[in-house]
Every structure is written in C-alpha cells, then in structure tokens.
C-alpha cells in the first residue's frame, strides 16, 4: 500500500446524535466503553498498511485532536508511518471553512500529492462502526482499471433514502447513481469510502466546481463510466441516530452480531488525561448481579447490571439497577437508582433513588421529536440528576444541567430539561 495515500474525513457534525454530539464532533463520540467512533476507521487504516494518513477536521475538533495525538496508539507517529491532522485554514479568502466533503479534499490536495509515488487515494469516513481491510478495495479498484471505486453494501429498502444509491452492471460498474433518492431504484448503498486514482481526482477538481462527493463528483464519474462499486458484506453501522448508536453498542453483547473489537484489532487511546495514574481493575461487590454486559476498568460496582455497556471509572452504588443502558466514563449512579434504556454521557451524577426510563414510550420528545425512539432517554455530559427524581422515556437532559434546573421531582416522558444553550439544529 505504499502507493496509496489516505484521507480520513472526521469533521462530521452528527446532528442527529443530539446531546452526544453537541459538544464534540461525531467521530469523537465514545463507543463500546473505551473507544470512540473514529477508532474503527483509524484502526482499519493502520491494519491495512496505509502509512500516511491525513485527518480532516472541522466541527468541534478538540476532543478528537486530544484523542488522536500523533497517532501512536494506532502505530503512527514514527519515521515510516505518519499521521497529520489537517484543519481548515485561511487561504486567499478570510475564511476557507470546508464547504463539503469534496471541498475538504480539494483544499488538501497538496498533502495528497506531496509523495510523487502515490497513484491512489483512499478517502475514509470517520463516522462508522466497521472492520475493513482497505487493501481489498484497492486491489479491486486496480483489477477493474477503475478511476473511482465506492465501497457499497446492501441496505433495507426503507433505509435507502439516507444513502447514496448505486445501480451496477454485472462487472460492478455503476450505471446509475442517486444521492439520497426519495424513490430508491436499488438497495446498494455507498458507505462513504472512496478509492480514487490520483490523476482522476485531480481531473475531477479541474472539471467540477461542486463541493460534495455524493452530489457532484460521483455523478460525474459515473456518467463518464469510470466508477465501480466494491461490494462489502461485513458488519457496518452508520450510528448516525441515537437508536442506531444504541443498537450498535448493544451488538457488543451478542456473540453473533459480527462485532468483535479485539479480533478486529481495534485500538484506542487509553491515556486518561484526567488522572495521573492508570485506572485500577474494576471491583464487583458481594451483592451484585452483573450479566450480559461489557465492563471497563476502574469501576466500583455494588448494584445490578444487565445488557449494558459500562465505561471506565463508573460507580454503581448499592441497590442500583442498570438495564439496557450505555454508561460513559466516570458517571456515578446513586443507591437504589433504576435505569432502563438510558444513555449517560461522561461525568453524569445520578442521585439516590432516581428512576429513568419508566412509563410508556408512546410520547416522542416534544422539543426534538426526531432524536429519540424505542424508549431511549439521554443525559448530557456533566449533568446532575437530583435524588428521587423520576424521569420517563424519550427524555433529554441537556449537558451540564445542575440539580437546580429540575423544577419538579417528576419529568414526564418526552420532556427536556436544561437551559444550557447549544446547537441542535439539523
């Protein structure tokens, strides 16, 4: 792969992940206890022998940059393997924010072409949970004599309108392309992973002024008959909505789901900048039941946990019960608290006797009806839920909500608490 350059698009806003992505870019959203979403694309790139990787950032990149560092945890940052973060920068105009995926790549072609030996560019998205050896798609690209190859997979027809949809002939050449079509003609969806011959992408940028791959570049390449679809059939999840994010986490508990992080060699940055020492082993107390769950280091568990993902440094006090939930780093769950189908972002404190997720799920969230479904409630980073508070389903507690913001001991299903201003706009 020493003739292949890599660019990873990690600027995504993740607007439908609500409070999880309101403080961080989507690739930096925590996943599976100790990981972040971008670890998958980064580990795939490292395991596929992409030795020089540029990472394009834009939206709230701080947690991401912190997490990636110089890439040591993925084997980058040495003499032969480099990783470079490429934020937008001012050029001839005052502000050159990336205007779309293609624009982001266009503004970094200098990085791509700095190694004259490279003839192929792999463009990856940092937004998905999957394992892929990019060597296979590059080999496919070269064998077909393609100038552009998209990684594609079959999706359900009712989901197809979220994706770029391709129709292919018997040689996997794309004969028809539609970006997020209202009436999809096929179920072969683009995964946002593109392999370009470098001469061809240079030509594309000369010919096409558009700023988006799906809308502008791919249709042009398909029209010229140079675009192919590489069929991928392994585990792949978009995790663009809270429902899909929750399900993909819960897939870790199912040995048959196809999601196997250690087998896949998914690496993460395990440094914990909030502590000088390493987190100790997790302690499970005498009166506990822990079943069908994932438990990270540094936890103190004295309650019951079932079908849940527990991140590092979580404290679960006596009598507490956590079911079907995702608990992120350093949360404290008070005595006798009951949590069902809850996502707690980092550093949340749940008071004694709190209950979240009881009642019916027939009311959607009033303020943000598109975010939550399947009865999931979510508590934003650093919030404090006061003791004895009862919170229904489809509730949102915004980040950094203090106990004083809870006007009542009962938060009905579909309510939102917290006044911290931050952008949800989709």
């Amino acid at each position, binding site marked *: 792969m020493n003739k292949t350059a890599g660019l990873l698009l990690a600027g995504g806003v993740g607007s439908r992940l609500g409070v999880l992505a309101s403080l961080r870019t989507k690739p930096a959203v925590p996943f599976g206890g100790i990981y972040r979403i971008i670890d998958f694309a980064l580990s795939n790139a490292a395991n596929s022998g992409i030795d020089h990787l540029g990472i394009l950032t834009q939206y709230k990149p701080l947690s991401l940059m912190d997490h990636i560092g110089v890439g040591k945890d993925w084997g980058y940052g040495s003499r032969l393997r480099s990783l470079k973060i490429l934020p937008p920068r001012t050029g001839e105009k005052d502000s050159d924010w990336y205007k779309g995926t293609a624009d982001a790549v266009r503004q970094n072609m200098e990085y791509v072409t700095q190694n004259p030996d490279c003839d192929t560019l792999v463009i990856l998205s940092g937004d998905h949970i999957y394992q892929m050896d990019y060597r296979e798609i590059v080999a496919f690209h070269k064998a077909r004599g393609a100038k552009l190859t998209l990684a594609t997979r079959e999706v359900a027809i009712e989901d197809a309108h979220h994706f770029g949809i391709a129709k292919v002939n018997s040689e996997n050449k794309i004969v028809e392309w539609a970006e997020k079509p209202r009436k999809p003609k096929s179920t072969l969806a683009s995964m946002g992973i593109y392999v370009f011959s470098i001469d061809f992408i240079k030509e594309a940028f000369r010919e096409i002024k558009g700023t988006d791959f799906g809308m502008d570049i791919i249709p042009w390449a398909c029209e010229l008959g140079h675009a192919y679809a590489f069929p991928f059939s392994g585990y792949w999840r978009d995790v663009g909505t809270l429902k899909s994010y929750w399900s993909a986490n819960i897939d870790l508990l199912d040995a048959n789901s196809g999601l196997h992080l250690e087998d896949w060699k998914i690496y993460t940055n395990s440094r914990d900048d909030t502590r000088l020492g390493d987190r100790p082993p997790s302690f499970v107390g005498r009166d506990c039941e822990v079943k069908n769950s994932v*438990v990270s280091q540094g936890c103190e568990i004295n309650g019951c946990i079932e079908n849940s993902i527990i991140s590092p440094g979580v404290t679960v006090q006596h009598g507490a019960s956590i079911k079907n939930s995702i608990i992120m780093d350093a949360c404290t769950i008070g005595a006798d608290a009951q949590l069902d189908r809850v996502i707690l972002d980092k550093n949340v404190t749940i008071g004694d006797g709190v209950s979240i997720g009881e009642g019916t799920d027939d009311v959607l969230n009033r303020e943000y009806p598109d975010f939550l479904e399947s009865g999931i409630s979510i508590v934003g980073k650093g919030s404090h839920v006061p003791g004895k508070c009862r919170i229904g389903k489809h509730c949102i507690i915004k980040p950094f909500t203090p106990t004083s913001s809870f006007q009542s001991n009962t938060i009905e299903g579909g309510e939102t608490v917290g006044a911290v201003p931050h952008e949800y706009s989709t």
Partner: protein
Amino acid sequence: MENILAMILAGGRVNQLDVLTENRPKSALPFGGLYRVIDFPLSNLMYSGIRRIGIPSQYRPFSLMNHIGDGSAWDMSGRNSSLHILPPFKGHRPSDWYQGSADAIFQNMDYIKNMRPEKVLILSGDHIYNMDYTRLVKFHNEADAEVTVAFKEVPFDQATRFGLGEIQAGKREGGRLLSYAEKPDYPTGTNASLTIYLFNFETLLSIYEEFANGRTFDFGKDLIPEILDRYRTYGYKFDGYWGYTNSIVEYYRTNMSLLQRDSELAPDKWQVKTNLRNRNLADREPAIIGKQARIKNSLIYNGCKIYGSVENSILFPGSYVGPDSQVRDSIIMFDSRVQEKARINQAIVDADVRVETGASIGSQDSTSFFETEDIHEDGIVLVGQRTVVPAFSAIAPGKKVQPNLLNGSFAMHNYEIKEFIG
C-alpha cells in the same frame, strides 16, 4: 526536587515464592489484577519528582525489562529523566554476579558517579507501598544526616524477621540511629527496616572506597551496623501502609486485602501507574460478562471474558472463565484460561496457563479464606506459567505445579489424576 538518583534493587529471586519467581525476578511479579510489584516504587518516584533511576537486575531480567520499557509509563523518559537497567558485567573478578544489595550498588559506582547526583536513594523493588520520598529527604536534610534508613513499627512477635533499628526518641518523624541488628533472635525493639536508604553522594563514595574490596555485601547485614557510628546515620519513621510479598501466604494475603475495600492498600487512591503497553494491555477490550456469569467480591480488568462463576478472586487482564466453571478465593494472572466445568479454589494461577475442561484445582469444599481469614501455605495451590492442566485432573491443596508442563509431561510429575470421566 534536588539532584537525586534512585537505585531500585530489583534483581532477586525469592525462594519462598517458589514457581512464581521461576521465570522472573520478584519485582516483576504480577500484583493486584493489573500491576507488577515494581510499579509501586516507580510510581512513588514519579510522584516524588525523582526522575533519574538505575535498576541493577540480574535474575532472568527479561520480564522486568519488558515491563519497564523506556520508562515513559512513569514519565521517566524525556529531557530531564533517565531510566537504566543495569545488568551485571564482567570486570576484574572471575565472577561478577551481584553478591547482595550493597554489592549491586558498589558494582555500579561508575554509573552512579556518571550521573553526578547529590544524593542516592536506594530502594528495593519488592514492596507494596505508597511513600512520598520528598518527606524522607526533608527529614534527612533537616537532621543534616549523611545516611538515613527508613523504618516502620511492626508487632513485636514478628520483629525477629526484620532488620531492627534503635532510634533516638524525641521526634515523631525519627532521630539518630543508635544501633541496628539484622533479624536478631531476641529483638529489643520493633522498628523494622524498610530497606530504603538515603546516602549523601560523598558519603556513599567514601563508604565504597573503604568497603567495596572487603567482604561487605548486604546493606542490612553488613554495612549499616558498621557505619552508623562513623557517619551521621538517622532513622526515619514511616507510618503508612506497607505490604509484604515475601512468601506465598504474604503475597496471597496482600493481594486479597484489595477485596477488602476499607483496606489501607489503595492503588486507585495512590494513582499507581503501570506499563499498559506490556502484554498489550492498552489494546484489550472491556471485560465481557456472559449471560450465565456470576461475579461476587472480585476484581476484573479489560480483556477478561467471564461466562462462569467468580467469587473472592482477582482476575488479571485476558483471563477467561468458561461456562459452568468456578473460580473461588483465587488469583488468575494474565491470559490464563479456565475452561468449562473446571473448578479452582485457593490457587494462584500464573500467566498463560490453561486449565482444561473439568479439571479441579485445590479443595472444593474448604471454608472460604474470607470467612476465616486463615490461610496456610499448604492450602494454596500454585500453577506455574504456561502450564496446561489436563482435562479432568485433580490437583490437591498445597501442590506446586511447575511451569511449562504440557499434557504429556504432566503425568510424570506425579500430580494425582482423577479417573477420566468424560
């Protein structure tokens, strides 16, 4: 922190620890479900701001070297830090293996001189404790001492096991060291040496010039009694937690006290650091707990996969506990597997062991250590590193199973094998 060089004596094998130190020096012994014993002094040094360390090491040092790496886990790499492992080397004498603690220091005097320290802090790498060495240094400076030895009060009935010092009374933190006796049959005091010594560099140099060619090899046994009248020698009293791991029973008890959450032994509070790159610990996924698993009063870490029953036990990263198996009152080290229907009670299972299906280790009906707090060496089974315990075999309490035994070689070692019932 002023210009201090720390020397950690980490080389030794401890016979009482039997097969656990077969392949590694004691300082590299795994501890507490994640750590190695030497993580404790290394973390103490880091927090005390002592950034230059030499580690004389001679007994099978590979495991230790692997663990320490470049020292960056403890911030010991970088512009103003250094960490060196110092193996024995051939010199003037026919055999230059280190002959005791003082000899290990004396043989490395060239290294010490090279580092140009003002003071040399000598530690042993095999105790579990949390100590701020800056307080020891402050005491030393305020007393204008040339040599300071750290002590801790121990119960009188145990005093005979230690080097005992008589310290001038009057001050809480210590005073002039009046006399010293190594493991006396008839103890006269209860201040036990922690084998922590602080020397002014010139003092150490002059002691070296006088004694290095003589017969003096150990600090406690030979040197301290010899010098305490001739140099300003002080005793510093430490009153924090001090965990011993010098015998199987001590090692077992000190580990198990981690399960008593009110114990003074608190690696979390002490923020102990280890090298997460050793054995790829950083790349382990969080522990996976199966639907039928049952876990009580135990420690687990990332990389554990638990499908059976675990009680009063410490599971290191990578431990696998299969369906319908049972682990009680035991320590299971890195990447060992307990296959289905196997049962383990009161055992220390070293790293990379496989306990095959239906094997039984230890007595299955003894009272739990956590009820009686009573444990004897003849009750604890040791299983050496990389051994495969055959399916449906039974190993009696107190047995020490050698490392690296495979199915075939196992029978020749006279471990009782139950009838094959599969």
